[in-house]
């Protein structure tokens, strides 16, 4: 087996030093995988990915991006290292235009390469190109997610982590967002996705990891998890038949 593109080893993390929310997580993602993190509310899914992104303090353990230990790398350097993160809420600069959001995203590139990269992002996300001067705060939920993902992809990161991109979106828009993520994954970007929308997420995932109480409880392919009679009801709060329908 090849070495993982992203891995955590015995990771403990949380907002308070003496109160870890993530409790010793060993996690690995192979290059090109689309992995979803599932689990009940309060399981520590968001805290886990925020700790990887550098937004929540790591108490102990390590985070590796490829062969590099990025545990102590400052959050703003992780993007340049190849790790992009899209938070669940407030994931665009609402008071700035679409173009300004993308200009911030490409600021780490050489000046000569920026315009071409923004053009490429507009080609990839044509809805954003309709009115680039529009304020990000005036966009719909789906368009905001699109802009947040475009911003995250500006440096062509090998790994993209998203925290509940479907939160607050209508079913139609959720389908669009997940189709977009599947396309991005098809382009070679490894994706780690925290999701509450089990049905939609399982449909596009290569592998699912279930967290509960800050620890990994189960992992496997969607069909493997679907065959487990207890997992859906205990950890996901979904009936088995719904879970199985999706996986099969």
């Amino acid at each position, binding site marked *: 087996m090849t070495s993982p593109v992203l891995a955590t080893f015995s990771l403990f993390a949380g907002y308070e030093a003496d109160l870890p929310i993530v409790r010793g997580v060993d996690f690995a993602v192979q290059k090109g995988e689309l992995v979803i993190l599932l689990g009940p509310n309060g399981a520590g899914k968001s805290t886990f990915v925020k700790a990887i*992104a*550098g*937004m929540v303090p790591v108490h102990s353990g390590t985070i590796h991006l490829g062969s590099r230990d990025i545990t102590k790398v*400052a*959050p*703003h350097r*992780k*993007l*340049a290292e190849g790790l*992009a*993160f899209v*938070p669940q809420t*407030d*994931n*665009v*600069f*609402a*008071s*700035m235009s679409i173009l*300004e959001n993308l*200009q*911030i*995203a490409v*600021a*780490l590139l050489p000046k000569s390469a920026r315009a071409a990269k923004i053009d490429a992002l507009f080609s990839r996300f044509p809805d954003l190109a309709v009115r680039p001067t529009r304020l990000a705060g005036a966009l719909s939920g789906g368009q905001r997610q699109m802009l947040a993902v475009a*911003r995250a992809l500006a*440096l062509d990161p090998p790994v993209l982590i998203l925290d509940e991109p479907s939160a607050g979106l209508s079913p139609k828009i959720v389908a669009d967002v997940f189709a977009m993520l599947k396309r991005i994954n098809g382009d070679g970007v490894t994706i780690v996705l925290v999701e509450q929308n089990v049905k939609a997420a399982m449909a596009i995932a290569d592998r699912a990891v279930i967290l509960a109480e800050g620890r990994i409880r189960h992992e496997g392919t969607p069909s493997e998890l679907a065959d487990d009679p207890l997992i859906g009801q205990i950890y996901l709060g979904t009936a088995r038949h719904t879970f199985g329908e999706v996986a099969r």
Partner: protein
Amino acid sequence: MNPQFLMDGLIAGAIIGLGAIGVTLTYSILRFSNFAHGEFLTWGAYLALCISSALGVLGAGFTTPLGPFSFGWSLPIAAVLAIALTGLLALAVDALLFSSFRRRGSAIIIMVMASFGASLALRSLLEFLFTSKPAYFSQALQIAMKLGGGLRATPDQLAMLVVALVSVIAVHLIMTRTDIGRAMRAVSENPGLAGIAGIDVRGVIRTVWFLGAALACIAGMMSGLIIQIRPYLGHDLLLPLFAAAILGGIGSVPGAMIAGLVIGLCEAFTVQIIGAEWRSAVSFAILIAVLVVRPRGLFGKAS
């Protein structure tokens, strides 16, 4: 009514506006009211005075008045150096005081109290070094020129208005057209997101301190040139600075400048209509009125 109050108000407003830009940037990005900001105006003026005087000692040619102005080359040269030194002073104050509170995640009130302490220390140090006696960049007397419409201004005053206009346009362009300006606005809106978007938040904070102090230095020099230099120069301007920052809308550079001009004009109008003893009350009245009627100011964003 004598229309001269318009010119007096514009000149006072330009000084207030430049100082208020530093207040509004600090507040929007560091999220606390820096009561030591007035001292950056004072230190800027004294630093420029020291450098200008030193240049005068080095060569009399430096102090020979330039054209119609009361100052020679010593002042523009001193201005450049004083701006850099005042910026470094602000960075030093941040490194010694505020950055440790940020690291510990201290409450905003602690930062505000610390800024009061910094203000007292910086002002007392100036009084210790220079005494309370007023100082002047130049002893030359200038005759105000007629500008038409009943307005008069000295060449120094007109030069200061041009400097203020150029400064505010430059800062506005920096904020809207450059990487560092967009980074400052991004940090102001969401520091966490700015970090994961690749922005060095600490670097942005350092830039804000430097830029705010640089503008304070210009404002302090303007006040020193047009009125006089004394240890309470910046402290006495603090209320109008905060009133302008809030009236303009926290985070808005053009807002701070326009609000500074509004306050300057209101003060000058009050002096003419009611009396000079009511000048300070104007800032209070505007501050209270804005907080009651429109807390986000003229150009601020609704929270």
